[in-house]
Structure formats: C-alpha cells, structure tokens
C-alpha cells in the first residue's frame, strides 16, 4: 500500500501539514536530486529486480510470521509476531540501508554516512556499504556508544568509522545533527542514509517505501495463516520506521493500527513520547511532533531503549495521529523490560528493547483483543547488558 507516499510525493513533500524540507540551502539541490533519483528508480523494473534479489539473498526475506502461542496465553489474545529480528544483522533496518545504498551507487555517490541510536541502523548501513564496497562513517551519541558497545564493535569490524558525538544529550538526536553537518560539508560525493522515517523530504517517504515490504509480507502471511486480517497491528515508535513499514500494509483495511512510544520513567518524568506528549515543531528538517520547551528548544528525551530515545517522530506518524487512522500509546522502561523477559521465557526469543515496548502494550491491554499482529523489529543481543543492569542481575 503506498497511498501515503504517493500522496506526499505528488504534493509538496508533506503528509497533511507535516513533513516539508527545513534545511540549509546547501542541501536543497541534493534533496531535489535524491527525490528525482528515487522516483526514477522505483519505476525502473531493473532496479526493483535487483533490490528484490538483495532482499531475498542478503537479508533472507521474507521474514517469518509466527504465532506466539505461549506468549498469547499471557496476553489474553492471539499474538502473531512479524520476525524482523530474523532479518540479516538482526533488525528491519537492513531493508532501508540496502535500498538506499543501492540508490546511492546509482546516483554515483562514493561515500556513505549515517547516524545511529541503538546501533542497529549503523550496523545495517555498515553492512550495506561493505557489500557495495563504499567507505562508511557512522555518527553515534557517546551515551549510546556506552550502552550499545556490541554494535560499536560490529560496525568497526564491518569497516565503518564510528564517530562519537558528545554534544547535547549525546544520543540519537545529536548524532543526526552531526551527520547533517557532515552532509552539508561533503554533499557533492556523499549520500546520507537516514535510518528512520524522519528528516527532510524525500527521506520520510523514501524510508517508508523501503520498509513497506514488512507490511506487504505480513498482510499476505496473516491471510494465509489465519484466513483473515488481524484486529490490531502494533509496533513500537521512535522515529517510527518499522511501524510505518508494517502499518502501510494495512492503511486501507478495517484494522486498528497502534504505535507504542517510549514512556521512559513515566510521562510526567523523562520520556521519548513525542506524539503522546509532544507539540508541533520542526526537528531535523521536518515539521512533526516534538518534545520542546516554550521557547522551541528541543528537550532531552529518555528511554532505556536507545532506538526510542528520540525527541521527535516521523511526519507520517504525526499525520496518522492527526487523522485518527493510527492510535498512539506508550510503555515505560519498566514495562518494556518486563515484556522483554516474558517473551524470552515464553517463546525463547530475546527481543530488542524497542519492540519490547510494543509487546508491553499487548501484555497490558491485549486481553480480549482477538488477533494481534506485533512487529518484532529486532533482536535483543545488544540490550542484554542494559537489561541485566536494570534488573541488577
């Protein structure tokens, strides 16, 4: 389903009033070039065939859809898991990075940069850059480097240079600022692989298009497995790429779409819930919902999950929330850690802390909800140390 992306592309780079292109003039030509290149590529059959081949052979798609029977008993509803944790490199991020780096080679770019929060997008970008033989620099907040050490080592082993960012809150938001500064400086030969459905147009549409395969597959799989559509589709939302990928498969169906944000220490304390508790503002090149103070300063978010520790959200989500097509809930650090343990104990799957927020919502509110499809966006090896620390194991 590409209703939203086509709508945005034909208009002004906006989803409803959200989105746009709030960037320095130096980047405008590159964004216009990227928009045109993507329009050409996505209607080029040869590009599509190449990308499909990579998704099958490198990523291992389609990823399974799996009925989590023992977890379902705990939740009080039938829970299907879309297993993006089984994609190569352990998360859905690779769907986007392979597509974008393939596009970059088509555009003649010779250098790849990226930001990363949890490190999953950094690893996926480093993997794609290695696959295509391009040099890669990944910007990562110093706080995130400390809590996702495993992924830092993985990126370096894949040949990427990992640059720590000390500014601001030293997390994902600041890593994006630093990547944008690099891009402003090296825009002529460099492609910036943004990792979520955020940033200036065309990034939110482009990343959403590349992640839409999650929802396309899941819809076909659930029809085959269950003979009908789910009642609810649930996914975690930081920037929101796995949720958009999954949701897009169901936009035109009579299915409830639920995004779960990070409530961190609680919505009255530090958190990352930009839709639930934010206001309209401009961050990283797009008008969306952000966490900010009265003067428009972006505030420091918090989540135990580095991937959800972000004070903004993709404009497509802000639009889905404003139209009511999707509903946004939140789960705290504590609830996420509990759900993490429940999935491990009931299904033998160690999830990433990001989708553990979606699982937490289902454990809390799932009773009697019928058939619930959850986006299991990544695996949790990277989070084992953080969970152990939080539980004092």
């Amino acid at each position, binding site marked *: 389903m590409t209703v939203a992306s086509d709508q945005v592309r034909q208009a002004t780079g906006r989803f409803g009033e959200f989105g746009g292109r709030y960037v320095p*003039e130096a980047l405008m030509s590159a964004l216009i070039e990227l928009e045109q290149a993507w329009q050409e590529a996505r209607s080029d059959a040869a590009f599509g065939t190449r990308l499909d081949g990579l998704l099958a052979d490198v990523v291992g798609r389609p990823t399974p859809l799996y009925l989590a029977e023992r977890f379902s008993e705990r939740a009080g509803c039938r829970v299907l898991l879309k297993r993006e944790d089984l994609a190569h490199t352990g998360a859905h991020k690779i769907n986007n990075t392979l597509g974008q780096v393939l596009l970059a080679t088509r555009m003649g770019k010779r250098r790849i940069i990226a930001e990363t929060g949890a490190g999953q997008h950094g690893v996926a970008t480093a993997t794609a850059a290695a696959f295509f033989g391009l040099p890669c620099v990944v910007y990562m907040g110093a706080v995130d480097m400390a809590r996702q050490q495993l992924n830092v080592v993985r990126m370096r082993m894949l040949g990427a240079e990992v640059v720590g960012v000390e500014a601001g809150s030293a997390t994902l938001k600041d890593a994006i600022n630093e990547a944008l500064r690099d891009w402003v400086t090296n825009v002529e030969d460099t492609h910036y692989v943004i990792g979520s459905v955020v940033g200036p147009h065309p990034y939110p549409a482009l990343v959403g298009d590349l992640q839409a395969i999650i929802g396309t597959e899941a819809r076909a799989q659930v029809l085959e497995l269950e003979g009908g559509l789910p009642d609810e589709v649930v996914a975690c939302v930081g920037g929101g790429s796995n949720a958009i990928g999954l949701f897009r498969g169901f936009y035109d169906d009579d299915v409830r779409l639920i995004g779960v944000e990070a409530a961190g220490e609680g919505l009255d304390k530090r958190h990352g819930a930009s839709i639930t508790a934010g206001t309209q503002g401009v961050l990283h090149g797009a008008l969306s919902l952000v966490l900010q103070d009265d003067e428009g*300063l972006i505030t420091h978010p918090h989540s135990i999950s580095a991937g959800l520790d972000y004070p903004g959200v993709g404009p497509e989500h802000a639009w889905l929330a404003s139209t009511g097509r999707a509903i946004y809930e939140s789960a705290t650090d504590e609830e996420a850690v509990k759900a993490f343990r429940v999935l491990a104990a009931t299904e033998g799957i160690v999830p990433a802390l990001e989708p553990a927020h979606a699982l937490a919502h289902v454990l809390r509110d799932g009773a009697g909800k019928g058939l619930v499809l959850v986006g299991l966006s990544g695996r949790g090896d990277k989070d084992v140390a953080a969970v152990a620390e939080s539980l004092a194991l």
Partner: protein
Amino acid sequence: MTKLLDHLLSLRAEGRKLLVPYLMAGVPQRDSYGPALVACSEDADAVEVGLPYSDPLMDGPVIASAGERAIRDGIGPIEALELTAGLGGSAPLIAMTYYNPIYRVGERAFCARASRAGVTGLIVPDLPLEESAGIRNAAREHGLAWITLVAPTSPPHRVEAIAKTATGFVYAVSTLGVTGARDELSAVASKVVARCRDATDLPVLVGLGVSNPEQAGAAASVADGVVIGSAVVKLVLERGAEGAASFLAEVRGALDALQG
C-alpha cells in the same frame, strides 16, 4: 525598502565595504553580553546576533558550544531577544535564529518581539526558499529585512529565485560546511558571489570561514562585505569585548584599504 537595506545601500554608495560581525546572545555572560555588543558595533555596519538553540545544525564547534553555554545560563532564543532589547550599539541588529523557536511562538509574534527588541533583519539558516513565504510576510509587516543564503550548490535558477526574496542583503556562503574558521578562503567564494551579482543589485556579503583581516580583504574585493562569526565569538570568549573589538578594528582597516 527596509531600513536595513537603506542603511547598507547608502554605505555602499560611499564606497565603504560592509563589515558584519556575529555575536552569540548572552555570551560571554548575561551581564557582559551588552558591553560586548556595544564594543563590536564600533567598526561594524550591522551586527548579527545569534539566538541560542539546542540543535544548531549549521554551526561548527565554536558557535555551537557558545550557544550551549548561553542555554546553560538559562538564556533561550526568546529570552535572548528580550535580553538584547535596548542594548544595541551604533550598528543595526540582525537576528540569526533556527526556525523552530519562530514556529513555536508563531511567525507574526516572533517578528513583533524581534522588532520590539530593536532587530532590523532576520537570518534563518534552516528555512529554504520553499518554506519561507510565511515568515517573509511577517517580516515585511514588521519592517524586518529578510536576508537570504546562497550556497555553492545553489544552481543559477535557484540563486535568482532566492535573491528575489531578499530585502536586506544576500549572504553568499563561501564554502560547503558549517560555521568555523578556515585557513584559506575558499576559491568557491568568488563563484558564488558572481552568481549572486548576476541575480541581484542588493549588497552581497561573504560568510562562513572568514576569520582574519587578509581573508576579509580578499572576500570584500569581490563582494560588498563580509560576515565574521566564529572568529569573533572565540575572541569574545577568550579575550572579552576589547579583544574582539580590536580584532574588528584590524578587519575594518583591511576593508578600508580596499576603498577606491
């Protein structure tokens, strides 16, 4: 015609090269910012005042950390405007701010507050032509000049469209990158200036990477003047208002030496 443009045009008509230093509002400290502003106005034709912001993605380390310092002292972008009111020295003030604080308080309300604070022009580095119609209208209503940025990557047709919207001056970004001193003034600068000249009769000032009197002289030999940011902010922090003012006097000398 805006007040700022009128002022700059009459100086240019006298053969004077324009000097616009940049200061971060609230730096070095709340009470020493005013004296720094007055001292730096002495040899300036306008002063650009940066409003502190949490996510300054066009700024290099010097200006970004100066902004962080102001924010740590409790000075946000709107507070910075209030702080600036009544402080101005002899030169007109231009506010440089990222867009979100403007969006947050509203374009009209922001322009009203800026105007009340004595600001005569606006630079918003993350608001390209396509997104700027609203703020340009609001600025016009409040008599504020709109200053546009042209980059080395701006093709001629964009330069033309951008220059058409300018009502203060055109800021020719001399190099790809963020703010900060450079060892050499980029050769790209004269190409960017030439593109601006083809598109407009408004004053064209070179900025980004201009950090000493020699570079200022070189830039002003092709353009109408220069904007100097990081070098001034660094001096204000390290050597105070007097250090920055004596540096600007040297730059003034280099610019005046060009006077025909």
